[in-house]
């Protein structure tokens, strides 16, 4: 499935990763799923609840954060489509840890941020057998953004 995203929302994701640098920044992707394509219309910034030093390499959004995210999506008439996070000074490929903790049917956008600058984002989706992530093409469009 394609992941559609507007230039503006993608820019917000990049800015989020840059602001969190050298730590990992993360949040939820909100939007709509037509069955043919998922369209990201807004992002929801959530606090990284990992402690101190671990925030450089890990992110954690708690169950309470997730519920808050779902409520916010409901309020906007959107769905939670997935998650975005940054990899400071590392490529935007999912790590083993990303795979172990991944939910199915979610898009995972990973942005590599080198020396404080967001370089590129790629999207990934877990396979049904949980064995691997497959890349999901990102289509950047100038859509109406809800945020």
């Amino acid at each position, binding site marked *: 499935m394609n992941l559609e995203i507007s230039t503006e929302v993608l820019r917000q994701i990049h800015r989020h990763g840059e602001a969190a640098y050298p730590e990992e920044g993360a949040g939820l992707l909100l939007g709509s799923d037509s069955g043919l394509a998922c369209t990201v219309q807004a992002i929801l910034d959530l606090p990284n609840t990992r402690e101190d030093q671990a925030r450089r390499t*890990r992110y954690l959004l708690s*169950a309470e954060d*997730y519920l808050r995210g779902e409520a916010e999506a409901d309020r906007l008439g959107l769905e939670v489509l997935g*998650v975005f996070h940054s990899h400071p000074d*590392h490529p935007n490929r*999912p*790590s*083993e*840890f990303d795979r172990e903790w991944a939910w199915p*049917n979610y898009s995972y956008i990973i942005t590599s941020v080198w020396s404080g600058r967001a370089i590129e984002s790629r999207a990934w989706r877990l396979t049904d057998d949980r064995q691997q992530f497959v890349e999901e093409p990102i289509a950047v469009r100038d859509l109406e953004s809800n945020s």
Partner: protein
Amino acid sequence: MPTIKVPSPLRSYTNGQAEVLVQGATVAAAMDDFIAIYPSLQPHLFNGKGELRPFVNLFLNSQDVRHLQGLETPLAEDDRLMIVPSIAGGLEQVDHAALRTNQAFIIALSLLAFILNQPWLAAFVAGMMILGTILRVPAFGFMYWRIFRPLGWIAPEVLKDNPEPHRFAQGFGATVLAVGVAVLLAGANGLGWGLVWLVIGLAALNLLVGFCAGCAVYYWLSRLKAPGFVQAPPEDTFPGMRPKAKA
């Protein structure tokens, strides 16, 4: 019958159902019934050992069952059990250049304390290591992050590794060193310096051979399922040895 509320990422496995009625007098029985109805959910909710995956939370009437009686929590007929995701990810990496800088400082300053016969210097090293353990950073890592790395004197060596065992190892070393200093202050010089040398020896083993004894203890405790010791050694790595895989 209790109801299970299904989060959106799992609804493709429940034919789109957001709520499913199940049978069972406990959370475990209800989840078993749920999996029996939709078997393809099994790998997403439970690991190979049949334990609930750490990112799967079960809320009973808005309370996390981990804070109740876990999977044995009893369920009433009209209870609602909600599956709530927590979401995590990120890199598994440790910059071993920072760890080595730390080990070199611990060795050099402890040796200096011994040579000059200055227990206060050993006390300073122990204090720094305790502080580092509390702040979850290598005690003298700041020398690497602030000085050696920016100047290009020491190149980063980022490996696929877990930070937790290294933190534990530092805390372990700090404890031995602090006991050594206390023994020195109590006047038992032989035993006191012996403990200081133990820390020097273990740090040198780590620096020169790449074996972290404290990490080995951590992984051993993890295998014994000691609470709080959750990480397993990186793939293809003997517990405590420096991993080979670059992050």
